[in-house]
């Protein structure tokens, strides 16, 4: 394990190629493809456009949330506020729907702003006041949930037709918009990680002291990671509203643990420095696909959890195995 970290650390200082980006997410992509194959064999209707569309619409909120959490985890932090921000964004969109594409954009700006505000609070408290991230973000999560309850006391409200129907449809009747968004996030990440901000994020996660010595503003890198995370959580709450066409003040709760499970499945190291957003996106997609596969193969009784838990552990072991194997090949 130690050797893997050092190795990938060395990689990220050089400009990463597309190949490396794919490589870091390689094990989880393999797992995802294996599951997708099993699913499409067992369930022939899985390959219809409708099935794919609904699967991705269902997965996208978790994927965005996991993408956001990755930013914080990469620098060695932790962010529980995800559940609160998603709930809050979700209800705000549902109580203040604005019609039309521009309205949808305005709603989007609102949720991103919410995410940025919460992220800024998290970032300030963690990076500058040096409070432990897990405790500070637990507090902000609770606060956000309280605000969400004040905004909407019970599930309800409605979102604009554009959000509910256009954003969950497909482009040219062939590519679900959810897939387009996921790919856009991957592309954003592959660019972001080569920028100064991206590099400082990773190096802070690898070795805080070394990063500080090489002139990186560690506190600022930490702060920024919470901002990015908040913005992505807001987007996740937005897509949750689009998918369910309503608001729910508890809508974010299931995301709390699932989101970190997705990040861990993607192979991003808790403690920082290794991993990436692309891997987390696939981790999240895998978790949602797992639900489908379990249903398709008929595991849906009391013991579903046993299988889910076992698959999660095995998937992580598989990732570790692949990473160990590739790093052995790469290091002389």
């Amino acid at each position, binding site marked *: 394990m130690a050797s893997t970290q050092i190795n990938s650390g060395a990689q990220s200082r050089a400009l990463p190629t597309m190949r490396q980006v794919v490589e870091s997410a390689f094990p989880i992509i393999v797992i995802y493809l294996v599951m997708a194959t099993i699913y499409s064999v067992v369930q022939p209707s899985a390959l219809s456009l409708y099935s794919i569309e609904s699967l991705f619409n269902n997965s996208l909120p978790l994927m965005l949330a996991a993408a956001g959490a990755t930013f914080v985890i990469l620098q060695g932090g932790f962010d529980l506020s995800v559940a609160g921000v998603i709930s809050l964004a979700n209800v705000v969109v549902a109580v203040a729907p604005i019609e039309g594409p521009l309205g949808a954009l305005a709603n989007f700006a609102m949720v991103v702003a919410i995410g940025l505000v919460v992220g800024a609070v998290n970032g300030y408290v963690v990076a500058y*006041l040096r409070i432990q991230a897990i*405790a500070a973000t637990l*507090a902000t999560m609770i*606060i956000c949930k309280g605000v969400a309850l*004040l905004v909407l006391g019970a599930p309800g409200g409605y979102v604009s037709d554009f959000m509910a129907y256009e954003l969950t449809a497909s482009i040219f009747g062939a590519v679900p918009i959810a897939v387009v968004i996921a790919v856009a996030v991957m592309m954003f990440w592959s660019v972001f990680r080569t920028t100064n901000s991206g590099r400082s994020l990773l190096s802070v996660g690898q070795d805080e002291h070394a990063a500080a010595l090489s002139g990186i503003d560690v506190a600022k890198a930490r702060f920024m990671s919470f901002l990015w995370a908040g913005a992505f959580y807001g987007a996740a709450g937005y897509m949750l509203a689009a998918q369910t066409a309503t608001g729910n003040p508890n809508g974010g709760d299931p995301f709390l643990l699932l989101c970190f*499970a997705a990040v861990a499945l993607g192979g991003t190291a808790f403690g920082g420095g290794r991993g990436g957003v692309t891997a987390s996106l696939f981790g999240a997609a895998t978790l949602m696909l797992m639900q489908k596969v379990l249903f398709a193969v008929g595991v849906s009784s009391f013991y579903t959890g046993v299988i889910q838990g076992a698959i*999660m*552990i095995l998937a*992580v072991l598989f990732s*570790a195995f692949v990473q160990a194997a590739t790093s052995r090949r790469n290091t002389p």
Partner: protein
Amino acid sequence: MQNDNAMTNAGAEQEDKRTTAKVSGEFVTIVAIFGLTIAMILASRAISPSFGSWSQVETILYLSSFLVFCAFGQGLVILVRGLDLSIASVITLGGVLTASLMNGSNEGLIYLVPMILGACVIVGVVSGIGVAYLRVPPFIMTMAVGLIVYSLCLGFTRGTPRGYPAPLLSDFMQGKFLGVPAPVYLLLVFVVFGTVLQSYSAFGRKLNAVGNNPLAAYIAGLPSGLLIVSAYAVSALCAGFTGMMLAGYASGATLRMGDSYLLPSIAAVVVGGSSILGGQGNFVGTVGGALLLTTLATILTALGIEQGWKTIMEGGVILLALIALREQSFAFLRDVFGKRG
């Protein structure tokens, strides 16, 4: 560490003469957190005249004991740089087994209690092996194990937990001794035992060493793997014990009985001054954290305001407590009081 240049302050003066600076730092945190809790209890008189009474303190001690039991285990796991998310499910496991195996009779308790706790320990050992030897991240290992255990409980009970705990257990949990609820004595014994185990025993010192610097501990010849596994085992043991006590308190088990302890157990440990990065922590601090959280919840329940505002206040107070309890705040206080003294 951070407290190298700790100066004396009013509260810690006598301590400082014979202990190291690090202990003084921890001591200040503990004094501050207990002080904050007591201040909250006194201030809560403004909300209800019945607050601030001994019976309120009794209720808080009683209700926080469950949190203290499971937070001790969580604290040990955090000490070795882990996190135990299976706590909620293991509490449920302990409770469900207590209700269904004891089945309302005192017979065979001598065998049943170790059996039930043993089952929980096995869960902890599995988590520990996954983390220490298979190198699965603690977060995902314990979450997955928690999922598996919960699912087994669901299947075992077919959704309806049956039975009652032994009358002996129920009577103890619901009884009073010298006018004080019996579990409060249990809490005191547990705190003493936990503190000795974590801070003054060879086992505790070794865990500290592993958490502080795994590499150094390894070089020093400590069996890191075994120590990590034992931390998870103790955590599961404590969670199972919590479940057993909860079942006794409520004369039965439900499948969600552990849910409300997961995040608070982590919060109690961290608010109590332990670092999530391992190697730093003190059980008395955790106890203070648990008392603080329970006191806060008790006061909020009695507040006649909307749930949304209550929730906001809960988060706000935790955040403020964290900010007030951090090292820099103490440094500031030390400066102020140091100059004056």
